């Protein structure tokens, strides 16, 4: 039902009508709707939702791709660790090909593995626990990337005391409301007419976490599910709220997200982690936007245990404008390297790496993004 072609076509008609009306009433040329979350971007691309939009409705990808914003020096550290005797680095598939900040080989955990580093890809943190139990004589380091959605994966086992002593966690977790606020605060130049808020993040932190967007910045925001019709419906809801002149917080994903989130999970998270200012790749330091293990669990914290200082180095690759792309401030086609020195086959910047990276998506979908018609 959430993938019905008939409903999609009809909804897309409603969206066309509504946008036409809004543009006529406001005298604007176009409307910018930011999908914060990388998985929304995946839904949009995979189901070709942009081609269902009228040309005046831009769907702008936001900073919700963890591959794009994870600091390169975490990767550098783990590349080195993977070559240590008796150390095994464990990662989700997503971060496997993420380049570090150093301009030398091996540049990613994928390449480290090809060069003989010990790297394993797992589907879940529990698989990492199993690995560590299976090889008690070896040190294991788990790269914990992700937003609030993913934090329970380590927080719940941590507070339950179920993690073996030879498994360390490198917390690359980042928090989403702070980056949203940072974006709206520091970059007023980007005009957003609506925001699609991350559904599964909200399942943990609650829909109310986004109320400030509507109330403080006057931008309609919808917590959305990830089926293609969820997204199309969310866009419709945004336009409707613009049309009505009532920018507000809406929840399209009520079947999963409630106003206050998962308080049980949030308790575990706040027990296991402490919030602190953190670096976002290419963007810079964002206040209270990251998480380290709280003192009680600091013996599981890889950086802490190994004595690494989180010194923030500039990990932009020269010429790459990924920072602007990630924040929705520029389109990939504005990057001089796009499809020249930087291609999906041979990525230069982080946004070209992951299948959710905006530059990668543009590179692969240019023909349809540009509105080329088939018949």
């Amino acid at each position, binding site marked *: 039902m959430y993938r019905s072609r008939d*409903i999609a076509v009809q909804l897309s008609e409603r969206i066309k009508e509504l946008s036409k009306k809004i543009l006529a009433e406001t005298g604007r040329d176009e409307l910018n709707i930011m999908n914060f*979350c990388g998985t929304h971007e995946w839904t949009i691309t995979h189901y070709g939702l942009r081609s269902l939009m009228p040309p005046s409705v831009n769907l702008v990808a936001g900073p919700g791709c963890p591959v794009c914003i994870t600091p390169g020096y975490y990767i550098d550290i783990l590349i080195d660790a993977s070559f240590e005797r008796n150390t095994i680095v464990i990662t989700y598939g997503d971060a496997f090909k993420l380049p570090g900040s150093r301009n030398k080989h091996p540049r990613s955990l994928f390449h480290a593995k090809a060069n003989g580093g010990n790297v394993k890809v797992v589907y879940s943190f529990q698989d990492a626990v199993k690995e560590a139990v299976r090889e008690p004589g070896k040190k294991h380091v788990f790269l914990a990337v992700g937003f609030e959605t993913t934090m329970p994966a380590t927080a*719940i086992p941590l507070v339950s005391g179920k993690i073996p002593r030879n498994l360390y966690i490198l917390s690359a977790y980042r928090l989403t409301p702070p980056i949203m606020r940072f974006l709206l605060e520091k970059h007023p130049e980007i005009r957003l007419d609506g925001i699609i808020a991350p559904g599964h993040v909200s399942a943990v932190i609650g829909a109310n976490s986004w109320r400030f967007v509507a109330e403080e910045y006057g931008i309609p925001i919808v917590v959305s599910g*990830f089926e293609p019709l969820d997204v199309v419906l969310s866009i419709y809801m945004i336009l409707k709220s613009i049309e009505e002149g009532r920018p507000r917080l809406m929840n399209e994903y009520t*079947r*999963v997200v409630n106003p206050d989130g998962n308080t049980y*999970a949030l308790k575990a998270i706040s027990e296991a982690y402490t919030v602190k200012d953190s670096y976002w790749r290419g963007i810079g330091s964002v206040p209270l936007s990251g998480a380290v293990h709280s003192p009680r669990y600091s013996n599981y914290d890889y950086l802490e245990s190994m004595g690494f200082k989180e010194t923030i180095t500039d990990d932009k690759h020269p010429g790459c404008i990924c920072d602007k792309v990630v924040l929705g401030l520029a389109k990939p086609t504005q990057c001089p390297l796009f499809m020249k020195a930087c291609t999906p086959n041979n990525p230069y910047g982080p946004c070209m790496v992951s299948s959710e990276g905006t530059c990668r998506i543009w590179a692969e979908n240019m023909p349809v993004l540009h509105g080329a018609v088939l018949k």
Partner: protein
Amino acid sequence: MCLGVPGEVVGIEDNNELKTLRVKIGGVIRDVISALDKVEVGDYVIVHAGVAISKISREEAEETLRLLAEISGV
């Protein structure tokens, strides 16, 4: 980010402190960590990275489908 898939809880195991759920995700049956306070066999949950992070409300789901039908007129 955050790929999540819906599944039905078909079993619950409580290993002192750490609760795991046996979840049927389509034809796949898998043990996942529970990040849920209260959960029962028969509940539907969202599984993300091997963790059940949220329950799914059947009524709300139907409500959304109803809304889709209403707006699209299909």
